[in-house]
């Protein structure tokens, strides 16, 4: 786990680092984190040019710069972002940009650890159900309504999003990470596929015992190992 901490106040950055170390010391079974601290936005951007990371701890107010401008630069990237901010009232807005969690300052160990648990769990979802998913465009970004997304397909490190209106988008996050952000009705069906269960009409079995879901006229393969899980979810 490569972790970047972007925080302009050194003591708070140290706190984040200290709690991270403590977390990984108590969770030896997990891939251990390695932290890097940047106190200025420019330094962080430089660092990201050279390095790929898995997780970003982001302060929304860096030397007087507006946090959401910073957020737009990071939230669409392949890594997960956790906001650590004094402005708790802007949490909902932050989630809409696709952050994994929002930790309000001041934060204690319990709250911080809970956030890290989310990072390491495929099933724990964010506390907030997003209505939209931010998607990068050539200029700026699009907010795609989650209810319009039919299914997702892995595409290298990226993920294709297939929508109701036949539109397709490419998201820089992996399918695993996107599922951590999307609402409960999105579920994995296959190593490379995930679907919006609201559009799942029936589970078909073809010759040879292969399972598939019909989502808006498209057949999505279902792994044998996930069939029971999907059946359960479809009947909920």
């Amino acid at each position, binding site marked *: 786990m490569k972790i970047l901490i972007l925080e*302009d*106040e*050194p*003591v*708070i950055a*140290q*706190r984040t680092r*200290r709690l991270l170390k403590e977390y990984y010391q108590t969770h030896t079974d997990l891939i251990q984190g390695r932290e890097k601290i940047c106190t*200025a936005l420019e330094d962080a951007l430089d660092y990201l040019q050279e390095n790929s990371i898995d997780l970003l701890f982001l302060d929304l*107010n860096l*030397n*007087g*710069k507006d946090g959401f401008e910073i957020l737009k630069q990071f939230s669409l990237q392949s890594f997960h972002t956790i906001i650590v901010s*004094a*402005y*708790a*009232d802007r949490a909902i807005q932050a989630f809409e940009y696709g952050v994994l969690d929002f930790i*309000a*300052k*001041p*934060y*204690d160990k319990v709250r911080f650890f809970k956030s890290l648990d989310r990072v390491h769990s495929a099933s724990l979802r964010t506390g907030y159900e997003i209505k939209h998913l931010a998607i990068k465009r050539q200029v700026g970004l699009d907010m795609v309504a989650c209810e319009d997304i039919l299914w997702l397909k892995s595409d290298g490190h990226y993920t294709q999003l297939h929508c109701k209106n036949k539109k397709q988008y490419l998201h820089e996050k992996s399918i695993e990470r996107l599922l951590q952000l999307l609402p409960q009705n999105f579920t994995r069906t296959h190593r490379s596929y995930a679907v919006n269960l609201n559009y799942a009409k029936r589970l078909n079995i073809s010759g040879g015992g292969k399972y598939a879901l019909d989502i808006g006229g498209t057949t999505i393969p279902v792994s044998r190992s996930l069939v029971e899980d999907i059946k359960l979810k479809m009947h909920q």
Partner: protein
Amino acid sequence: MPAFIKVPLLLVLLFFIAVSNAWGYESLLEQARIGTASKVDCHSENPDTSQWVEGNFSLSPGQAYCLRVQVDARQVRIPDNPALIWSAMAAAEIYWDGAYLAANGQPASVQAREIPGNIEYLTPLHQRWLDSGPHTLSIWFSNHYQPQPLHQNLYQLALVDYDHYQHQSVLSYLPAVFLAGCLTFIALVLALIYGLYQKDSVIAWLILLASSCALLLWAESWRSLFGYTYPLHIIRLNLILWLAFIIAISLTGYYIRLYYPPRLWIWWLSSMALYLGIIITPLSYDFKVWAIFLLAILISLGICLSAFIKRKAGAKAALIFLLITTFLFVVLKMRFVEHWFAVVFGGLVLFNLYQLIQRFAQDRQRSLEADKLEAELLRRCLQPHFLMNSLTLAMEWVETDPEKSVSFITSLSREFQLLTEYSRKSRISLKDEIQLCKNYLDIMNARLQRNCLLHVKGEMASINLPPAIIHTLIENSFSHGGSNDDDFFIEISRHKGWIRLELKSPYGKSPHKGLGIGMQYIKAQLTRAFGDDWHMESREHNGQWQTLIEFPGKI
């Protein structure tokens, strides 16, 4: 158009209608011959009038007189409904061509038998009595009840139109009564404001001015309204004279209070002595009243002129007002003294009432503004970025370095205590302000792990300024990312009674965007404290952000 202009304009119009109405009035007083005679001789066909004199003059009290005048219908204009108006300090019996016409009271050669007549007496004449030929009007009158000699005993003897005269007298007192009512009401309103809201002596002078003007108008209208017997005339004249005196002292008192409060009594007493000087002269009542008004206007004009030269607030408007008053006084002469003064001074009172209400609105605005600034300052120190980050720090040190956390929490609580205390004040001493800034720097140094200092150069004793001005500038410097380790410098200097504060702060990385909330706060506070008398400019210089603030040292 605001009401304070409309109302006086309306009154002026009413007055214009009242005084400009041309009407038939044939005075007989100028040709009349007056002398002492018995009642029989007075009304006889050919009395001996060789010792008699023509015209109007002072008659000694306590005697019976005879007045005779020839009326020739071919030489005078005879009105449709002829009537005789007689106004004099006397009881009188009126004969027309030797025949009894009317009696106003009962004249007599001794006081015991006299019944005083009314000061004004109107009696109709038959049209046929005025037919052709010269007629003789003889009036036998006595003035036993007149207490002292007057410059004039006979006021009117004239041929008038009966209906027109009555109509005219209504027209002449109606605006005065209306105006008196208005002034009484204004005086009451002002008295309520004085009693319940603000015990300001300016208001007290205005109450005195408005109520004395109202009383003078009532006294002037009394004659046309109710009439009275002639002995009361002296009382009324004295009343008018003393009311004019009160109007004069309240007018001058008002202007002295407005522009020269410390020397009020000396000025006021000397002007009062001048008015009293006029009262004790042996001049006629009308002339004394006229002179008192003239003097009061001139003294007020002098006060306002001097205030205008010294550039006192509002002196220009007052001066213009008094110049108009002086002009009206010169143009209208006695008519000014009778009624117009009330229009003019009523305008003055209304104008001041207007200014007063404006001041109330301003006061309200100011107190709202003060509340707003206080709330703004407190809100700024409760701003999440400052508060939550500081609390995160406290939390971290509680867990890792309790000693550090205690000292940090102490600085933090001190910051809140000071800001809560200072935000309520309109001014604090520069020393307190510097203290507040140093405490704030302690917090920021802890947060940013730096060691920025605030250096003060210059004498800061006896300088007061609105709270958190420099604090806001330093805060701004941090929130704009002054990220190098430079110190802050304040230079205090004085120049021609002005205080000059120059703050040099490390130049931030992010741009200073126009009017930040902090800058708005500083400007609002400086305006609240110094009006337009302050100056502030900011610029980047040699990698520093320099802010210069100048304001008067003494207000």
